[in-house]
């Protein structure tokens, strides 16, 4: 309950931001920034004081128990890692935003969105109930939509916001289906229980479907190829959003999901193949593309995609070292990537551009920002003594420990990491060193713009010196959770000289080389625009719109006659489907009673009148012909001894013919302009509908299953209802509610006529 309160209070606070700004003015951001830090403190205290050193905590709050959805939270090592990152980096982002957006008139709105975003992320990584995970998942989609489109004046911003929303929602919906399939297969909607049932689920026939659907969700959220395009485009968002989105929030949702389901789904060939192939390809290609960017934020975005690919692949390998590497590198990445985005934003603020080819030597003006950037770049490229290096070496070891043929992963990792190292230096160091280059005279920055990144940058190095702090508190527990069983863990900068160290040195050397030739590679890539998923996305949307236009033009043509044809034809089709195909009938042997001569005569006259009514071009004649049909029906009523009905029908027919004649007298002649083909089609439809109705009616009275209720009316009309005319009694007593309705219909018609008439007068 308390835990749920702590997580959900962010949503409530989001509504209080605007009043807070009114009351506190400039101090409001400080107060709001306290919130994530206090959450961080709460999580840490909760975790360190947990009753069982290894176990997890579950905190439940009811929500919609009938639908099996509640707000149960599972707090174990894995969710702790994420919660610490989300609230800790969130706090720094909150502080940074205060100065980054200090002159934005909608700063209060920004904090509201950010609070929703952060709280949704917290809920996502702590959710025990699979459906509540989906709820928080989509809440991050909505809030990121609002954040990416925070400055919606440009078409690019709106497009990027929509793209992020659609791509992640595509995955979200796939994930929803996957979660339901998983839950039904494992007979539980709680991760804490599903984790125990990995064997059952891995043997279940729906295993592959569930896994692939869940991975689709994870891949879209974590920007894996070919769904990655939304992430580089999302950098139109204000930089604090990017810093958060790329490090601790949003994109880490997919990694979290894969890590969470790893003990349930992991260890199979499909798991390994899907994750290493998609993750590996993403890792390498995005790293290569990243180095070709000139915009610092774009470059960092590609490097994020790349790192996410690496984490996916490593989780796919899934051995002891891999799981540890994934957890450590995840932590390291969150720290350095948020730092680098913040320094990038600071550069943009100070120098007026993010174009790396026009930046240099800013370190003299912005020494503290430079310090943060350089520390982060060290961690990213794996220079000792950083936590990034520890993670990277673990990942190399994971590859080296893999089965024989899978060792190829090491080569891929080495290749990709070289590019990432070059990217780290190009984005984190190069702008600060060398000759001064800046489009605008760089100006001093407000304190939070260097303070926030510096804290995170320093942390990345400090934890490299003393990794056991985070290892003991939660990284080890997280690795245990992801593995599904306890694994030994001993983080240290130096384990003696081994292959992994050699690979790290190779990475730095290769990275240096690539850094040297990066401009050549950029020019090469810029000269060759290629058809990427970003363009395919646009084409897909326009194809869909084309289909929509076509189908709507076909269906919603605007012509009443076409609608009528469809209505009658489809209705007749539905009836005949049931009559002939779906439920084959044993036609009752109805002995054809041949009609008498006078019945023949009346019937023929009616049919002739029907043909005449259609063929004539004079409205009046047509109406009269219809009248003939009506009177024919009246005669049949008389013949079959229903005088009351006959009288009614006679009156109605007479009245309507007179009315029509009065109204239609002044209208021009009918002209049938339709071509013959149309008329043939109409005739066919009409005949078919008539035939189906005839068949239906012919069959029906001969299989009457029960006596009619009207016999009761005949019995009690006099005795109980005190009326001799049964029709009257039915109308005003037995079925009086029908009559009330019909009277109302008449009243409505009268009101309509009156109102329209009054309108004419006025």
């Amino acid at each position, binding site marked *: 309950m308390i835990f749920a309160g702590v997580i959900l209070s962010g949503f409530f606070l989001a509504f209080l931001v605007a009043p807070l700004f009114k009351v506190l003015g400039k101090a409001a951001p400080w107060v709001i920034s306290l919130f994530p830090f206090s959450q961080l403190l709460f999580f840490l205290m909760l975790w360190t004081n947990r009753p069982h050193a290894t176990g997890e905590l579950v905190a439940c709050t009811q929500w919609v128990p009938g639908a099996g959805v509640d707000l149960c939270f599972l707090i174990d090592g894995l969710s702790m890692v994420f919660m610490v990152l989300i609230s800790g980096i969130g706090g720094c982002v909150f502080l940074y935003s205060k100065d980054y957006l200090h002159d934005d008139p909608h700063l209060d709105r920004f904090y509201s969105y950010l609070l929703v975003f952060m709280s949704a992320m917290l809920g996502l990584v702590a959710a025990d109930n699979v459906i509540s995970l989906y709820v928080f998942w989509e809440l991050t989609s909505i809030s990121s939509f609002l954040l990416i489109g925070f400055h919606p004046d440009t078409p690019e911003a709106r497009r990027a916001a929509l793209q992020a929303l*659609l791509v992640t929602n595509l995955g979200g919906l796939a994930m929803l289906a996957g979660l339901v399939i998983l839950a039904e297969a494992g007979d539980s909607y709680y991760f804490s229980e599903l984790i125990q049932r990995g064997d059952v689920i891995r043997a279940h026939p729906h295993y592959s479907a569930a896994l692939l659907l869940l991975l689709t969700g994870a891949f879209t959220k974590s920007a894996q190829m070919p769904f990655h395009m939304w992430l580089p485009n999302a950098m139109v968002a204000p930089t604090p959003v990017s810093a958060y989105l790329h490090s601790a929030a949003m994109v880490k949702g997919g990694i979290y999901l894969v890590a969470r389901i790893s003990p349930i789904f992991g260890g199979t060939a499909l798991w390994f193949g899907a994750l290493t192939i998609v993750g590996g390809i993403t890792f390498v290609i995005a790293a290569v593309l990243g180095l070709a960017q000139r915009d610092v934020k774009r470059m960092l975005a590609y490097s994020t995609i790349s790192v996410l690919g690496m984490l996916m692949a490593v989780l796919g390998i899934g051995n002891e070292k891999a799981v540890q590497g994934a957890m450590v590198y995840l932590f390291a990445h969150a720290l350095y990537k948020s730092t680098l985005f913040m320094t990038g934003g600071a550069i943009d603020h100070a120098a007026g551009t993010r174009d790396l080819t026009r930046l240099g030597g800013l370190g003299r003006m912005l020494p503290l920002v430079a310090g943060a950037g350089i520390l982060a770049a060290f961690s990213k490229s794996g220079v000792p003594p950083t936590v990034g290096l520890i993670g990277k070496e673990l990942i190399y070891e994971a590859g080296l420990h893999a089965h024989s043929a899978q060792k190829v992963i090491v080569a891929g990792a080495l290749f990709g990491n070289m590019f990432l190292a070059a990217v780290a230096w190009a984005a984190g160091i190069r702008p600060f060193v060398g000759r001064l280059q800046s489009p605008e005279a760089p100006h001093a920055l407000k304190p939070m713009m260097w303070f926030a990144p510096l804290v995170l940058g320093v942390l990345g190095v400090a934890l490299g010196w003393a990794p056991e702090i985070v290892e003991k508190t939660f990284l080890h527990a997280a690795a245990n959770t992801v593995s599904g069983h306890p694994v030994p863990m001993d983080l240290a900068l130096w384990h003696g000289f081994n292959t992994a160290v050699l690979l790290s040195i190779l990475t730095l050397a290769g990275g240096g080389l690539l850094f040297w030739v990066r401009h050549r590679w950029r020019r090469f890539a810029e000269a060759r625009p290629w058809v990427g998923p970003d363009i395919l996305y646009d084409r897909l949307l326009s194809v869909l719109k084309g289909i929509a236009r076509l189908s709507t033009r076909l269906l919603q043509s605007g012509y009443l006659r076409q*609608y009528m044809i469809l209505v009658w034809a489809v209705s007749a089709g539905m009836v005949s489907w049931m009559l002939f195909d779906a439920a084959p009938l044993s036609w009752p042997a109805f002995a054809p009673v041949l009609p008498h001569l006078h019945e023949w005569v009346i019937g023929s006259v009616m049919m002739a009148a029907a043909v005449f009514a259609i063929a004539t071009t004079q409205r009046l004649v047509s109406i009269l012909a219809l009248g003939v049909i009506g009177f024919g029906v009246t005669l049949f009523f008389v013949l079959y001894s229903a005088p009351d009905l006959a009288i009614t029908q006679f009156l109605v027919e007479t009245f309507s013919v007179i009315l029509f004649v009065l109204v239609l007298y002044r209208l021009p002649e009918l002209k049938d302009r339709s071509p013959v083909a149309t008329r043939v089609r109409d005739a066919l439809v009409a005949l078919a509908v008539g035939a189906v109705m005839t068949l239906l009616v012919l069959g029906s009275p001969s299989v009457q299953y029960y006596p009619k209720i009207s016999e009761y009316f005949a019995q009690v009309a006099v005795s109980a209802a005190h009326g001799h005319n049964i029709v009257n009694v039915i109308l005003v007593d037995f079925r009086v509610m029908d009559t009330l309705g019909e009277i109302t219909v008449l009243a409505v018609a009268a009101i309509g006529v009156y109102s329209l008439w009054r309108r004419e007068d006025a």
Partner: protein
Amino acid sequence: MNTLLVLPVIVPIGAAAFIWLFNSRPRIQHALVLLTVAATLAVACLILRQTAAGDVHSTQIGHWPAPYGITFIVDGFSTLMLLISTLIGGMAALFSIGDTADRRHAGYFPLFFILLGGVNGAFLTGDLFNLYVWFEVLLMASFVLMALGGQRTQIEGAVKYVMLNLAGSTLLLAGIGIIYGLTGTLNMADLAAKLAGVSNAGRVNAAAMLLLAAFCIKSAIFPFFFWLPASYHTPPPAVAALFAGLLTKVGIYALVRMFTLVFVADTAATFKLLRILAGLTMVSGVLGALIQKDMRRLFAFLIVSEIGFVLMGIGFRTERALTGTIFFLMHMAVVKSTLFLMTGVIEHWKGTVRLDRLGSLFEDHPAFGYLFLGPVFALAGLPPLSGFWGKYVLVQAGLIEKYYLLVGVALAVSLTTLWVVARIWMEAFWRPACAPKRRADAPLGLLRIGPIVVLAAVTFLLGLWAEPFHAQALQAAGQLLHPSAYMQAVLGGP
């Protein structure tokens, strides 16, 4: 006789007569409107109090025993529909008092309440022919309301509306006639009891198709939905909101009732047909919405698409699926009415509801923007808004029953819907205004803001506090699938 059950019909129709008397005295008329709104809501709440615990109540009109007289009956499903219809009707009526454009015409409020009475009658009646009568009442009232403005587009839309719906009435009447010929009864519970003993259900199902076609027309199911996008954008916002919230729901209500109570034998083919129609309805609806520029037309197409979701749950035919259907019905009725009322406000501010001419609504009216976000994203089924619960329960039911294709289609439609609604937000609210054309800023007034806020609050409530609504829907779905209580309430006996 449980008089309470006829009040949802009698109160609005009776009030309509009094309101008509005070056509030339707007103040008195408006007071009467307020009184009627309060009375109908109170009646609906009283009925809820009777049925909330799972009881079914019936009354035999004129004490003529079933199946000979006409039965009025409420169970969980009809109670929920009744509540929603009176809520929406009431809010739309209040909005009309605030919006002078709506009530220029003499017959406006009487027709409004007659329509509401007709809708309630359809929800309450336990008699097939009486259902037809209420259909006629609401058809006639809605037709006149639609044509009341007398503009060319309004008349054109109204003519299409009335012609297609009359075709539906014809089919309905023919179907009722044949079923009466087969069974000799019109009382729904009696029909169910009698058809349970019939071995050859094929013939009954064939006749049921006539009814189905008629209900499909009334509830705008593929390929019978043409009248809806052709007409809903023409009347004034309050009328459109009333139609959007109520008309199609009556058709769906009747469909649910007949296909859970009466036509329950040999269901393989009929329910397969329902599922096919559901898929086609949701796809064609959302595709239509995708290319609309007029916001009202767009919402009209989205009604079609959502009806597909509702129908899908009927096609799955499990308790869970029907729960989803009922929840979804409540959600879409409230959300759609809210949005149609909101288009009225947008038109008031900007003079248009065309997406290609709107812009910067969020900049100009941020509070309204936030209020709009909830219902509009609820349409796409984003959690934790109201649309999510229905969608989730339906998807879950479909996956459990292994209708993978249809569930896949539903999810794809949901994604496309998100695109559609995000586009509304981006073009009307985010994009800078193309031309700063603004009407004179007459104040909106509490009577127009109030109903919108109330309805929007209900949609938020349906999402965030879904449990009581879900519980009622679950109970109603159970009653639908196991109609013994219903039958007993009508026919008596064990």
